[in-house]
């Protein structure tokens, strides 16, 4: 994994798709490619109540990315901080990364005839900003930070969820 972690609190997500729109605008993408997407599972009735799961799907920036292994030109690359990105100048549009990625992350930009993908908005990160999706998120259900800071947060959550007072 990269040194970052983009976490979604699905309970707060309302599937408004502001993240998808801002991502595309920030990357100047045409109709079609969605580097991130909220996939809706449901709604279905669970114990009489309608319930849906809104799953935010960006790139996971794997430790050993299938996409990099598959890329024949070296266009798919990994930065020192672990961000997996595509160097458009080297992309020949072979779509090998799209076939390789188990999560369906690399997207086809039909206008440029090249691949587009989530790079955690590294241009924004390098300017001291958060990824576009995280900044804009209507309900603040997206969180971005260093991966090694996650455990303490999860521990605090778990503690709150199981707290009892004698």
């Amino acid at each position, binding site marked *: 994994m990269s040194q970052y972690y983009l976490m979604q*609190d699905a309970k707060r997500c309302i599937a408004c798709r502001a993240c998808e729109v801002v991502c595309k605008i920030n990357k100047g993408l045409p109709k079609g490619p969605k580097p991130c997407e909220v996939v809706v599972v449901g709604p279905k009735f669970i114990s009489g109540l309608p319930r849906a799961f809104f799953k935010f799907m960006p790139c996971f920036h794997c430790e050993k990315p299938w996409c990099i292994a598959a890329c024949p030109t070296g266009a798919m690359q990994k930065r020192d901080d672990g961000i997996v990105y595509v160097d458009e100048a080297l992309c020949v549009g072979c779509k090998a990364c799209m076939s390789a990625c188990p999560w369906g992350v690399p997207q086809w930009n039909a206008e440029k005839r090249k691949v587009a993908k989530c790079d955690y908005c590294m241009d924004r990160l390098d300017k*001291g900003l958060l990824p576009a999706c995280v900044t804009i*998120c*209507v309900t603040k259900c997206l969180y971005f930070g260093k991966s090694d800071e996650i455990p303490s947060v999860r521990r605090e*959550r778990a503690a709150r969820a199981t707290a009892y007072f004698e």
Partner: protein
Amino acid sequence: MFPEQPFEGLVFALALALHKWQAVFVIHFCSENVEKRSEGEINMTKTVFSLCFMCTVRCPIKVEVENGQVKWIEGNPHVPGMQGSLCPRGVAAMALVNDPERIQGPMVRTGPRGSGEWKRVSWDEALNLVASKLQEIAKTYGGRSIVWGERTNLATHVNKTFMRLLGSPNHFTHDALCKGSVNTACRSLFGYTDPEIGIDYKNTKHIVLYGRNFFEALEVRPVNFLLQAMEEGAKLTYIDPRVTVTATKAHNYFMIRPGTDLAFNYALMHVIIKEKLYDVKFVERWVKGFQELEAFIQPYTPEWAEKETGIPAARIVALARELSQQKPSVIFHFGYRGASHPNEIYFRRSILMLNALMGSIEAKGGLFFKKGPKEAGGKPARKLTEQDGLPKVTEVRFDKVGTEVFPLPDPNHGVPQMLPFAILNEDPYPIKAAIFNRFDPLLSIPDRSLTERAFEKLDFIVTIDIQWSDTAWHSDVVLPESVFLERTDCVQQANGLKPQMFLRRQAVLPRYDTLPAPIIVKRLADRLGFSRFFPYETMEDLVKWQLEGTGFTLEDFDRKGFVAYTDKEIWWDRENGLKLKTPSSKIEFVSSLLENAGYPSFPPYEPVLPPPEGRYRLMVGRCAQHTHISTQNNLYLNELVPENVIWINRREAERLGINNGDFVEVSSSCGDVCLRAYVTDLIHPEAIFMLHGFGHTARFATRSFGKGAADAVLQENKSDNVGGSPALDDTLVRVRRAYRK
């Protein structure tokens, strides 16, 4: 398989802890980059605080401009509940600015109406033409023969001033189409209109939403405030014949029979009064007509309501008890759109009365009255309509609001769905010209073919809009307005617990040959000899004129995008301080407003009969990705939701031989449309549902042209004559399989 494990256990929010974490991260990053930033091209970039206008909510925004281009928009970080957040429509404004499908300059029709034959002309030519036509029509038929219809906006006072000078009483807004009856219901009980009443989402313990699709027809701040309350344990009860995103977040969900919400409320009142679950002290102090309600409500038992609504009596009783435990921090939401049925006003009144029974009026976590500058010892911004010497127009309005036909609807907004009747029947008098400002009657007023016939009778139609609406397409002259990022606008008087003023500021120069609407109106006024009532040349002049005497200046808005009259919340004393504006100074369950106009306060409930075999009640609504009829052609929003489909219950679809995705023909007494079916268990069998806003016919808007279908084609033009709303969900339609669109 998708690895769900890493995300398990993260689902339960601890927002506070996480936000702290995020803040630390940002600060860390910022400190590293300060140097780099200050060395950057600082002269070519600027930050502008403004107000979004992708819908009418007016979310405060921060716009980053680089080399004269909008590079980034986010929610104003200084405003609680925004803090960077922006909805998909707000974000998509970045695509609106540079959209070549905007109206690029003034246009004059050269072929038949709707043929799409246009001539691009100069502003002088267009304005001279409009001014001379208006003058000619006013001279021949009187000023009253000219109508102005608009989507309420910050410059409404400018347009009203113009109409008064023309000698016409006929300024109306789209408001009544959306919520005229909510407005009237609020006045009947409190003496205040619905925009004067706020909702304290942040502190609520239980909110009840009647088809108020809170998380899709969304407002950023209320969404965040309610989510915050829910994280602290607040309950959400949602009542809707259709499962929405809001339903998926609810603690109680009721798939009610369409049109029977009033029966549900009467049963709630029955239980609340019978079991004395109400706030006795509050009701005794502030309510007029409680005994009358108590007597009226006797027959409406939960068992009676079960038969009408399909909701088990026990659940209604349980809900009443559950709600009463949290009083007064409970909200029965009085609605955003309130225009569904002919008895709309009585339904909206019942919601408001439930709030009063719970004592949740001027209460933390309930409803409150919005406080204006005067409550904080300040002065509001001036409006052009307040000028001395401006003529008053006392003639009867085209919609007869204020007469015995429509005694109660708010004359500040009118009843727009009466426009086709007024034109076609020349009743109360002939209407010859119409000016529409960002309002699209062809797609908004029910019964499109009726509205089309009325248009044919008009001598002159002018549209002031940012893009090719259907109405622009059928106009004679189109005057293009600059989009909100390209213009400064009139001051927003943001009343609330803390009265404030916000300002929409120009961020970039207009991309095309467009003008702000108040400048267009001023230039028309100059040509008609009304200059003295338009004391400005630029929008900045107008804002400065508005701010005179308030103690604030234009520059005061630079730092955060708004100014505040006070930093403390103003609450009235619930014992003795409610400044109700009804004749009795009480909350009038027995309403003098209604009864003086000859309407009962408590008419007996009229049962809603199930539709005959093969017919369905048409319901319409919104999604998070579109605003009414105005965003369907946006590059990004169009990609997300390019067309509407018709929701139909699985069991009914099977009976009709309709499969998911089939083209179906939907027909009513007014017209028929063809669109794809969405076959689902998520809707009540008596209802079918479609999104509002599709079925555009303006060819220049290529992305939305011909996509989906317009609800206005199917909806019958009928109204709640007491409250003023149209009954948009009261049309019965047939559905059958179509083999080709």
